[in-house]
């Protein structure tokens, strides 16, 4: 392969094409045969991706630029309306931009908290202690318990929310709520409140965070288990403390997985059912007006935001990880 890379692009394209055309010189070579078989193996994916991904994507993009009118006898027509859908979604719709903003904020906080949490839990689960297997079984339960329809179904109940508010109020007044009283204490003593607000938000959302970090724990744990014990042994012999070897060995070895986990967490958060933007898109689409154009414009904006966050976090994490190498 290394010899071939010197060739011009056109030559390699020509060769690639020849691999699939019987009768040419390249066709009967071993690499060409392998290439054909390989293509055959991934053919289902190619077909699916083109027909059920690319085509709908293009179609949905078209719809987001047009006004979609359903005809009475089935079928539909599209009328160009000059970016009105995007305009409407971003500036006219009463809920969309606010929901988008709050969800993005929640996403940033939750992603950071999930990464830290799952990393800590993975480190603990990687140690040897009694009941470790049971702990593992329980920590991966959220993979089941927080999938699909299950999260958010109870919080959609009004009573549940009402009770939550009441419970919060009662706790605040009686001082039982530790995080709230601690927060007050810190505020009174004059510690900067901006950062602490975020931290307390994380503490209050700890249930959501643990429920969302099943897969991430597994991924971190697999990374931890692949570190060879001889590294720690060598560090120990050289007089490295556990704290030092954590920062000098464990963290750098696992940090490449940080990116995978970060992306997974962001995507997972954006696709959840209890996300208010997803709910809004659904209600716009299947609601009274059946407003397909606006709904697809919204989902494109939403996707764009998700992509933006993934790009930003990739940029940051690759920088951070590089400095450790």
């Amino acid at each position, binding site marked *: 392969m290394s010899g071939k890379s010197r060739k011009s692009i056109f030559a390699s394209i020509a060769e690639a094409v020849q691999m699939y055309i019987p009768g040419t010189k390249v066709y009967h070579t071993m690499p060409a045969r392998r*290439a054909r078989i*390989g293509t055959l193996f991934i053919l289902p994916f190619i077909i699916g991706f083109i027909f059920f991904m690319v085509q709908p994507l293009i179609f949905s993009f078209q719809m987001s630029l047009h006004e979609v009118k359903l005809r009475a006898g089935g079928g539909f027509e599209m009328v160009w309306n000059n970016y009105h859908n995007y305009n409407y979604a971003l500036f006219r719709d009463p809920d969309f931009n606010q929901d988008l903003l709050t969800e993005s904020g929640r996403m940033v906080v939750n992603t950071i908290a999930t990464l830290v949490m799952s990393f800590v839990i993975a480190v603990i689960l990687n140690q040897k202690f009694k009941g470790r297997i049971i*702990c593992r*079984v329980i*920590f991966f339960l959220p993979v*089941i318990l927080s999938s699909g329809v299950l999260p958010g179904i109870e919080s959609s109940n009004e009573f549940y929310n009402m009770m939550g508010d009441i419970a919060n109020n009662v706790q605040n007044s009686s001082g039982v709520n530790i995080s709230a009283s601690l927060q007050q204490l810190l505020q009174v003593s004059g510690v900067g409140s901006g950062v602490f607000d975020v931290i307390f938000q994380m503490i209050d959302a700890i249930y959501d965070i643990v429920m969302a970090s099943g897969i991430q724990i*597994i991924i971190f744990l697999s990374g931890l288990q692949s570190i060879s014990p001889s590294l720690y042994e060598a560090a120990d012999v050289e007089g490295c403390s556990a704290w030092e070897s954590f920062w000098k060995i464990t963290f750098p070895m696992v940090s490449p997985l940080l990116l995978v986990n970060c992306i997974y967490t962001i995507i997972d958060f954006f*696709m959840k059912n209890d996300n208010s933007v997803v709910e809004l898109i659904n209600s716009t689409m299947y609601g009274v007006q059946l407003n397909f154009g606006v709904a697809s414009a919204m989902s494109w904006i939403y996707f764009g935001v998700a992509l933006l966050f993934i790009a930003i976090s990739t940029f940051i994490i690759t920088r951070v990880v590089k400095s450790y190498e």
Partner: protein
Amino acid sequence: MSKDNTVFIGKNKSFWERNRRSEGYLLKRRSGQIALSVIRALLMFGLCFMIIQPMLTRLSMSFMEERDLYDSTIILLPRHVTLDNYRIVADLTSFPTSMLNTLWISLLISACQVVAATLVAYGFARFDFPLKKFWFGCVVALIIIPPQTIQTSLYMTFANFDILGLITLIKGSTINLRSSILPYVLMSLTCVGLKNGLFIYMLRQYFRSVPESLEEAAYVDGCSTMHTFVKIMLPDAMPTIASCFLFSFVWQWTDLFYSRNFLSGYTLYSVQLSTIVSRMSRYFSDNANQSIVVPNGRQLQLISIGVLICCIPLIILYCFTQRTFVESLAMTGSKE
């Protein structure tokens, strides 16, 4: 540790004696260890309890009669035990039918997904072909693109299904596939179903970790490519495939998004569960022949039971297969 060392410190000497000899180091170290394990145990217990507690609350709540719900002296143990709630929820979610439908559809879909994903993953892991990087980029894109983006257009595509205008030519109009399972099976077989990109990724990661010499040996002995794949690669890959299957099964079981969009012709448990509240008032009013507003507490109880019924089969499955779930995924994730 060398032998004379043990003799010097002496196992039979008391802890304090040994501590004195090490000039307090032993005590410091031992107490540090104990403190660490106590903190760890507390943390683990707390977090585990937090995960399980909602399920336990739901379980105890599910046996309560309605009046127990409003009795503030009752917190966990029901005073009037009843199984009536389960019957009501079963009626509300058309229980046996919806569960059976969910079961066979989940099995079918996850089988399709896993078969397709295995083939594609093997293709990516072992063959060099033109545009390989590009197609793998597409797999990553598949993982990243939220299905919500294409939801609308897939809905429209299948509502007015047509293959390059052929069906319109023959039948005169497009056909509506929205209530049939066919589109979803097609999507699963072509790797664009529920979280399918992830399965391709996991399986590819596994296939890459298998030494290539195995296949070379098979090739030298005259084994064809397909034969090598079926006889040599597949048996070893079974644990990973099984874990993909389990994930797919569980996610399909609880899935709402695809079920609502593509399987509206079937009564599925997850869809029934998501709309349980709207059916509740009708159910109770039919019983009493008048319109009743179901109290919120009661609603919450019935929803909890619905969630419980949905989870129990999965939890039982998980308890038996947790090794497959966890260990083989840990194996595949190891290389980045």
